[in-house]
């Protein structure tokens, strides 16, 4: 009976090992498909998005009137019409010569790093070519990468201008924070969710906003609405004069032209992004858009205008052969360690060796099932938990009392457990990968050995009764 139990456990271990190393293949659409999920790799092992930003050499065309003021909506005018009206066409570079210097390149690099951090990118490398200002970014490839890359060369220049005169009323220096959010604008939840961009201005900005929102007031055509207005002087003013509007610009692109219903005294401006919707995909798109605008505007503008020169996915140079070689070396070391165990503890050593192989297989399956992202650090983490498991099984064999062995072992690895748990929450893939591997590895050491290793040794010792 004891032998049958031992053989059953060993067969179960062999089955788990086979599944872990070779997978479970089932026919699907005329081909065999492995039902065991693949490993999720970090950018050092799976590849990364490589983006090169070059200092822009482009120019922008502006049409100015005789007074030197920028003429709005003059894009469609022909050269003859421009000359007729006495306008002048000017080509100005986005980056003037005084902008193109090392200090500004360094600031730009820092700001891109800040944006990457704020947008939640969990692994990236930013390099600066100090000679020409080129910035190279390597970042992890996921569903948000495209969105980030599409905004990466946005300088984040924010302006509120008078729509008519183009006078700059507010700019980046007035912003304190920019956040995005969503909610139901009214009690009617069926109308859908609205995504917002909340801009909070600093003290000076708040004052400017109050002035602007007092001055650029919506023109009321309905007389009855006047009764609710406390400031009658202003109301009369708006009725008598032409409605004045402001234009909000990001990177010189007009985002909206509007006027205000009443002065804003809170120093906060809420902008609606998109329309109200109940469609999850559309909503997600709006949230992403609002989030990327908030990231771009939060830290002021990048002093240098960059053009996206290169954007491609590059596979890791750690290839299949390297991984295979690493695997064989690791298996060789594990095999050697298990042989030592077998020599030292004879038949009990053999059982524990089987159990150990089962642990390794279970660990690899767990890492796949829990979608732990494996980086090189994560691979080293596997090595560390294998060492820890070896120490525990060695202790179990030595003291022949699993309770004592567990107590002795886990008291000693409390600092490592603390490290593993904290690292799991770090938003930097190489560290979190190490932490996750440690966490699952140690949890599995605790559960697996009490179930499998302990059972095998108990059965062997005839204590199962």
């Amino acid at each position, binding site marked *: 009976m004891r032998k049958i139990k031992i053989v059953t456990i060993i067969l179960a271990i062999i089955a788990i090992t086979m599944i872990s190393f070779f997978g479970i293949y089932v026919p699907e659409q005329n081909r065999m498909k492995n039902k065991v999920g693949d490993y999720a790799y970090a950018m050092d092992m799976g590849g990364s998005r490589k983006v090169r930003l070059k200092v822009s050499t482009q120019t922008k065309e502006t049409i100015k009137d005789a007074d030197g003021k920028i003429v709005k909506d003059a894009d469609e005018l022909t050269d003859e019409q421009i000359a007729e009206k006495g306008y002048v066409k000017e080509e100005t570079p986005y980056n003037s010569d005084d902008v193109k210097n090392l200090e500004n390149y360094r600031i730009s690099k820092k700001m891109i790093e800040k944006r990457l951090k704020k947008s939640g990118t969990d692994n990236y490398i930013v390099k600066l070519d100090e000679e020409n200002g*080129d910035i190279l970014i390597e970042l992890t490839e996921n569903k948000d990468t495209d969105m980030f890359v599409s905004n990466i060369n946005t300088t984040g220049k924010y302006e509120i201008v008078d729509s008519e005169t183009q006078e700059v009323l507010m700019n980046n220096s007035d912003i304190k924070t920019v956040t995005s959010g969503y909610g139901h604008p009214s009690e009617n939840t069926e109308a859908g969710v609205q995504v917002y961009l909340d801009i909070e201005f600093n003290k000076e900005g708040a004052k400017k906003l109050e002035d602007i929102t007092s001055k650029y007031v919506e023109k009321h055509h309905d007389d009855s609405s006047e009764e609710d207005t406390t400031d009658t002087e202003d109301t009369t003013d708006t009725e008598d004069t032409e409605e004045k509007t402001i234009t909000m610009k990001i990177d010189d692109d007009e985002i909206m032209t509007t006027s205000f219903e009443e002065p804003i005294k809170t120093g906060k401006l809420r902008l609606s992004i998109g329309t109200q919707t109940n469609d999850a995909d559309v909503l997600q798109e709006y949230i992403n858009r609002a989030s990327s605008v908030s990231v771009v505007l939060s830290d002021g503008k990048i002093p240098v205008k960059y053009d996206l020169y290169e954007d491609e*996915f*590059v596979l890791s140079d750690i290839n299949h052969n390297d991984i295979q070689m690493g695997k064989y070396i690791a298996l060789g070391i594990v095999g050697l360690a298990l042989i030592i165990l077998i020599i030292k503890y004879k038949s009990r050593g053999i059982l524990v060796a089987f159990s150990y192989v089962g642990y390794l297989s279970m660990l690899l399956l767990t890492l796949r099932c829990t979608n732990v992202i494996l980086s*090189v650090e994560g691979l080293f983490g596997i090595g560390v938990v294998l060492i820890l498991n070896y120490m525990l099984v060695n202790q179990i064999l030595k003291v022949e009392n699993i309770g004592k062995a567990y107590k002795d072992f886990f008291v000693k690895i409390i600092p490592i457990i603390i490290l593993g748990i904290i*690292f799991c929450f770090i938003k930097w893939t190489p560290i979190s990968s190490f932490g996750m591997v440690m966490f699952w590895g140690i949890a599995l050491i605790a559960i697996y050995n009490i179930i499998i290793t302990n059972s095998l040794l108990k059965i062997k010792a005839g204590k199962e009764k």
Partner: protein
Amino acid sequence: MKKMSTKTKIVALIIAIIIIAGVIVTLTVGLNFDLRYQSAKRIELYLGKQFEIEDIKKMTDDIMQNQEVIIQKVEVYEDSLSILSNDITEEQKSSLIEKINEKYGTDLSADSIEIETIPHTRGRDIIKPYIMPFAIVTIIILIYILIRYRRLGIMVTFFKTILALIVSQVLLLSIIAITRIPIGILTMSMVLTVYVLTLLGIAYNFEKKLDSKNGEEK
């Protein structure tokens, strides 16, 4: 004060020698950075068909003798390749393109392929993301250790822990400097592993001392 045993003295002396040698090597020769982190040159070639990195490696070994080269597949179709090396001259680029055209029947022209400059990665940029997590973990673990092993003396436990953590890392970096192991994608993994193993060593050492102290008291 407890005297150091001869064995401990020898170990301490060896560690001190390695650290001094490591510092000297770092200050004089500097650390050996992996090609990925060095300032380098890169060319990218579109083959329009699948290829084996090994085949390209043979060509680069021929043309760029004694030069470190990293070859990577580009884009999901894996029909383009990127070649990175410390330096790629116009002649090397032309020879490589010639060989590739010959092997794959492509029609690549050396004139249309640009040699890009890849700036180096600053050491501080590699380390930066690790500083805060290490600081948080070290502080929390230190608090735990000081509470758990307070009977061994808070100050002694504190200094021994800090000393062990610092010495182990400095020792690792010294070995890296002396052996000229490149600072690359394995470095931070090694730092993490040594950190964890040091914590394990510290805990084993203090538990042993705590046990013997408990034994003495009984």
